[in-house]
Every structure is written in C-alpha cells, then in structure tokens.
C-alpha cells in the first residue's frame, strides 16, 4: 500500500497538478465568458419575443459584469437600449435611458455592428411620438438618419436610413418638402441597382406621387418599377393593381395599360374583392375577360401567388 509520501512524490502530482492549477484563472474566465454568452442568449431570446422588461434585466446585469467596450458589453448595451426604448408603456425616463445607452455605444464602439442601428434608433426616438405630449422632432431625426447614410454608406442600413429620411419630408404634406423627399429617394435609387429595399422605395414613391403630389403619370411609373423588381408585400397586390388600372384608365387614358392591370387584378389579385369589377371594366373596354377562378375547388387551379 502506497503511503502519502509516495503519493506526494508521484510525477503526475508533482507536474500535472501545478499545471492544472495554473490554468484555473483561465478556466474561470472561460466559465465567466460562457455564463455571459448564456445570459446574452437569454436576453436576446426575450427581446426577440418582445418581452422587453425581462430582457432589460438580463442585459443590465451583463453590462455591470463585463468590461466596457468589449463585444458582449456592446451587445448588452444595445439590447438594454432597445428594451428601454420599447418597454411598454413608454415613459420619458425610459426614453432618456435608451437615448443615453445608444449614445454611449456610439461613443465607445463606433466600429460595433450595433452602432449603425443605434444611430438609426436615435432618429426613431426623435421622429415618433412615444407618449402623451412627446414632441415630434423631424430635424433631429433627419440628423441621425443622415449620419447613418454618411458613416455607413456601404451597409444595407443606409438604404433604410434613406427611406426614413425621405419619409420625414413626405409626412409633412407640404408640397415642396414632399418633392424634396421624393427626390432624395429617386437619387438614391439611380445609383443603387441592388438596393434591397428598392421595390419598397418605388412603391413608397408611387404612393407619394399619387397623394399628395397628384402626379398620376409618375405615380404609375414608380409602381411599375416596384412591380418589375417584385413587390415586397405580395399579399395586397390586388389593391395595388386596381389602383394602377384606375390610374391608367381614368387619368392617363391608356387603355392598354388599364387592360393589363385589370387582367392582373383577376389573375393575381382577386382576393382583394375587385375581380368582378375588373371583369366589368374589361368588358367596358372591349378586352377579353379572364375567368374569375378564386375558390374553385378543382385540382388544376394554380395557387394564388
């Protein structure tokens, strides 16, 4: 039987144990890092399901437990800012906290992937009325949207910021400002063929030229551009096709274009409830009238796309 001295002198104990102990701080840091990751994951999950209150608590804890400027810190600061911003009911105090955190992130980690969204969120804070008597600050919002466009021109979020910037002008419903907003978008689209929001931007332009600018020709041109790219929201195309058909028939007196879009209402947008009236319109225009096949319980019908 080995005695204790034998054990003490065994090579594994003499060399391996000190080596293991020397790694303990690393193991501890790794454990901390795993715990932080687990907390961030939990916070993110809560945030994604819009449980802002619970997520805020978690992110707040991570902020306190991590070093300023690290990646987990940036993640937690952004998460906490979003939670404070959207925790319902919104209050002035929580909005101020959100603003402070977004600004903190921009100050300490401009290179973080959360920085552009923080800047954009500061714009949203300024633009939207968050609670009773919260002033709308369109100029403040424009400043932040412009900053996103200027500082991160190659990221997709710059397109979103451009759309937001244009919308701050359009929503004034002042003709000159609305035109300026429309120009901003058109200029952006001229040089960016692959803009992910292009179809949405063209649709927004179509709406803007329709109302308040009442430029029906340009409105239809914009809608057609959106259609050519593929409408972002294919669920309501029937309503859009109907508007395009009426614009073509009533305002542009373009029979062929009207026929094209009434046909599309019947074939792709009958769920809008306008199929029957589109048939009547085609009859009136002396064009062939497609059959209305919505709800036909036969297997050879192709589904509504």
């Amino acid at each position, binding site marked *: 039987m080995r005695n204790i001295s034998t054990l003490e002198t065994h090579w594994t104990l003499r060399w391996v144990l000190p080596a293991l102990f020397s790694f303990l701080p690393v193991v501890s840091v790794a454990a901390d890092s795993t715990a932080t990751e687990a907390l*961030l994951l939990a916070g*993110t*999950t809560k*945030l*994604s399901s*819009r*449980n802002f209150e619970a997520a805020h608590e978690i992110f707040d804890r991570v902020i306190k437990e991590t070093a300023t400027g690290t990646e987990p810190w940036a993640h937690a600061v*952004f*998460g906490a800012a*979003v939670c404070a*911003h*959207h925790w319902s009911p919104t209050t002035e105090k929580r909005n101020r906290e959100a603003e402070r955190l977004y600004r903190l992130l921009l100050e300490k980690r401009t290179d973080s*992937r959360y920085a552009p*969204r923080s800047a954009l969120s500061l714009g*949203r804070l300024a*633009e*939207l*009325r968050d609670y009773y008597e919260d002033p709308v600050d369109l100029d403040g919002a424009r400043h932040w949207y412009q900053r996103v466009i200027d500082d991160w021109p190659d990221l997709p979020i710059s397109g*979103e910021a451009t*759309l*937001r910037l244009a*919308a701050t002008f*359009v*929503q004034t*419903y002042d003709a000159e400002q609305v035109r300026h907003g429309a120009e901003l978008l058109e200029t952006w689209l001229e040089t960016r063929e692959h803009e*992910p*929001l292009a179809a*949405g931007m063209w*649709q*927004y332009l179509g*709406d803007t030229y*329709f*109302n*308040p600018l009442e430029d029906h020709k340009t409105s239809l041109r914009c809608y057609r551009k959106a259609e050519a790219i593929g409408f*972002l*929201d294919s*669920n309501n195309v029937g*309503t859009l096709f*109907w*508007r395009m058909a009426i*614009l073509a028939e009533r305002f542009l007196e373009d029979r062929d274009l009207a026929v094209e879009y009434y046909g599309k209402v019947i074939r792709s947008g*009958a*769920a*809008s*409830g*306008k*199929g*029957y*009236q589109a048939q009547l319109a085609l009859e009136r225009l002396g064009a062939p009238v497609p059959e*209305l096949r*919505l*709800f*036909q*319980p*036969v*297997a*050879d*019908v192709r*589904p*509504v796309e």
Partner: protein
Amino acid sequence: MNRDTGRRQSIARWINVNTIGLALLLATIGLSLGRVMQVQRELFEPGKTVLRIGHAALELGFREALDDVIAEYERLHPDVKVLQIGVPQKIYGEWLNTQLISDTAPDLVELYLASMVLDEHYLGSLFESLADHVDRPNPYNAGTLLEEWPWRTTFLGGMRSGFREGLQDYYGAPITLGTIRVYYNKQLLREATGSDAPLKTFDQFLNACEAIQQLSERTGGKVTPIAGNLYIVGTFLRRYRVAFTAGYESEIDLDLDGLISLRESYIGYLQGSVDMQAPNIRAYFECMKELSRHFGEGYLGLWRDQAAFLFVQGRAAMLAAGSWDATSLFAQSDFEIGVFDFPLPVEGERWGQYIAGRENEARHAGGTVIGLYKGSKNRLQALDFLQFLTSRKYNEILTRKAGWIPVIVGAQPSDRMKPFLPDPTGYPTGVDVRNSGYVYEVIHGEEWPFLHGEIDYEEFAGRVDRALRDPGYGGDRQWSQEYDQMWRWCRNQERVLAAQASGILMDSEAPGGQKRYNRLLLQQTLANNGESIRNQFEQVRGKPIPEM
C-alpha cells in the same frame, strides 16, 4: 336476546348519520381519485405524445368528424394521442385567455374570440410563427397534385386568415371556409306559395314572406316568415347596404384602393353625395324597413340558437345562418331544407334601379383558424397534426363529415355544401359612416325605432345627421380617433420592427427574417405616422384636426 337480534342491534349501531356520511365521503374520494387517474391516463398516457386541440366549434357533426380524422392520425402515428377540447362559444374567449395566462393552453387552439389571440402583440409572443413552414410543401399532400406546392398556396384563396398584417407573418391555418345563406323550409314555402324553388329576386322573397304570413294567419300556426335574431340581423343589413351603395365607389373612393372606407363615407356624406337624402341610401333603409317586418316579433331579443330552434321546429319558414350550422339544421329538421343566397331587387322591381350587385365573398379567407401555442411541449408533432388536418385528403374527410366547406385546393365539398361555396362575384364594400363611439351608438340606436316604424325616415335621418355633425362627438371626432389610432399603430409597429432588427443583428432571427423586416418596414413607412389622415382632415374640413 337471541343471536340474530344481537347481530341486528350490532348492525343498527353502525347505521347512523355519521357512518353514512363517512361512507359517502369515502365513495366520493374514491370516485374522484378514479376520475383523476382516468384524466391523468388520458392527458399523460405513458409512452405516448399527447396533443390537445382546443376549439369553439360545437356545431353538430364537427366534433365527431374531428374524432374520425384524429383516429386516422393516431393510426398513422401509434405513439401519438390527440385530444380535442370543445368549449362553448359563450365562454371560449375567457377560457382561452385563462389557459394562456396560466401557461396551460392546448398545443393547438382555435384563434378566436380571446383578446390574447386577437391582439397581434400578444399573439406574436404566445404563438409560433409558421413562416418557416408555409413555403415548404405539406408532407401529407405527397402523391397528390399539391405535392410540391408550398403549404400556404394549397389553401383556397391563400392562407390569408392565418396571416397577421401587423406582424407580417403566418400564425395559423384555417380548416374550413364559411359563408352565410338563407335556409328555408321547403314544405312551408310550397304550402304558402305553391312552389319550393329557391327564391331569386327580392319581390319573390317579399311575396313569399307575405304568403307565409297569410298561411300562418289562416292556420293559426304562428309561423314567422324569417327567424330574425340579433346574431344575424347585422349580416342582413350589411348584405343589402353593400348592394344598394357599392355604386358610389367611383365617386367617393378617394385613395383608389377599390374599397369605401369609413372616412371616405364621411367625406362623401359631408359633400352631400351619400348623405341621408341620397336616393340609394334612402332606398336602402326603406327596403330594410320592409324586410324587417317579416323577422318576427321581438327578434332583437333572440340569439342564433333560439332562432335556429324556431326554424327546426317549423315555427319559422326561413333562417339566415352560416354554412357551419348546416349539419345541425339538416339533422334536426324533419322537413326538407333548401338554401339560397340573399335575394336582391332586380330590374323592374321596386328598388331594382338602386342595386349595384351582391356583396362578394372574395375576401373570405377561411375560418376556424388553428394556431400553434408556443408553450407546447410537442410543437413539431402539433405542427404535423395541423398539416395533416389541412392536407387535401384529410381536409376533405373532415369537412365532408362535419358538413363544412373544405379550404384546400382539390378537396371536394359534399353536394349539400355546394350552394355555400364562396362567390367572388360582386362588390367588396358599401357606404358606412359609423365607426365606434357616439356616432355608432346613435345610428345603431335609432335604426331600430325606424325599422320598427316608431319614427319616420325624416326623423331618423335628422337624428343621424345631428349625430354626425355633432362638433364634440360626431364624425370629426371619429376622424380624429382614426388619426390617433394610426400614429399609435405606427409606434407599436416600431416595437415589432425593433425586436426583429435586434434579432437579425444578434443572429437569433429565423431565416426569412430580413424579408419580413423589410415588409414590416414598408408597411409602417407607407402609413406616414398617420399624417395623411391629419392632412386630409385639414384639406376637407379647413381646420386643424381635433386633439384626442
């Protein structure tokens, strides 16, 4: 004292109130334990995955049909047991809210009546998004023409009733289509009019009502022509309102979306094109007054069950009801039933010149929408069962047995249900100026005295006009409310967008998240924070929109 007497005395000593009470108590405990164990076995059957589906479809035939389809599913999946929980409609909303709050909701539930499923913000956090599944084929359609079709495209008219605009996502799948038609007692109609053919025009409809009334008076049978009831009278009014007023669309649909909104109706009212003296509006109300004479006495005190009871007992000749009631009505009536659509005045008939056409059913998107509860411990299995229910083969079996209309392309309805198929012919909307609050209450409240002949049309029109023009609570306030709701909606959508954007940044968003985000972003941007509503008010009314 012999032994028998001693035994009797001994037994008698034990038979007293206390021992009976104790015996009853023990029996009750035993029964309760047995019941608890039985429920335990049903709910937590060892070795089996137990799925629960909660719904409010207690119409005759549906539960039996669902049981049959469940049996088919269990045969294919011997390790799964499916339990259905049918809850009466009157308490369904409260029941579901309670289940959701206490985290005990069934795996699959009908998204109906409960505030926590109607409010998109609760819905999004309590129910699974089906976005990852709707673009993939339904495996139970294998071997059919739908084999490669994305699941959402296999639904007649799309899967729109499962789609939530405000969340830009799918949260449920419908299992049927539903329409409303007029059921009639063929025998009574034949006795009264000499024919039992479906009624096609409004004159035929009114004449039949008169004839039934006369028959009733002759025979002393107390038969009401139409079993009016509070549940259905709104449908009658809407169907005829659309028919009489859809023609105004070209004049008052300002945003050219093809629909007449409440705001557009109000603007049309202020500009005089659709006020209470407009010929079609007046004709509509007169027509409804004429029709409501045949709804029976005290019909506003009846609900759908009582009206159906009158019909199946032969005490009402006609009943407007949903396709979902077909099995109940056919099974419980000992007379032949016919079905027709709401008859409209045609050319040459009184009011014929005012009719644009029928209200269409193109926007019907499917009913009994089933959602997948996020708290379910068997989410994948529950989704599998939902796909089973909405496969071509099993949706046909389910709906044919239930006497409902199938919702899947290619699933064939029974012959009896063919008259109920949604008809996309006609118009989607008509003029309506009542939103909520004061204007709604006044119009709704004054409609009945007018329809019942207690006040004349001028009096009724005057009261409606005063309500709409009321400076504090009238149409302007409705407009202001709409503006208020719209900017609040835009603010609330910001929460959805923020959660989505954060998820994308933090890599926790499901595939397709960016596309969904872009759609939500566009939808919110198009609303312009409600400012178009404010701007239109200022243009039309020439003054700032009232503060809420």
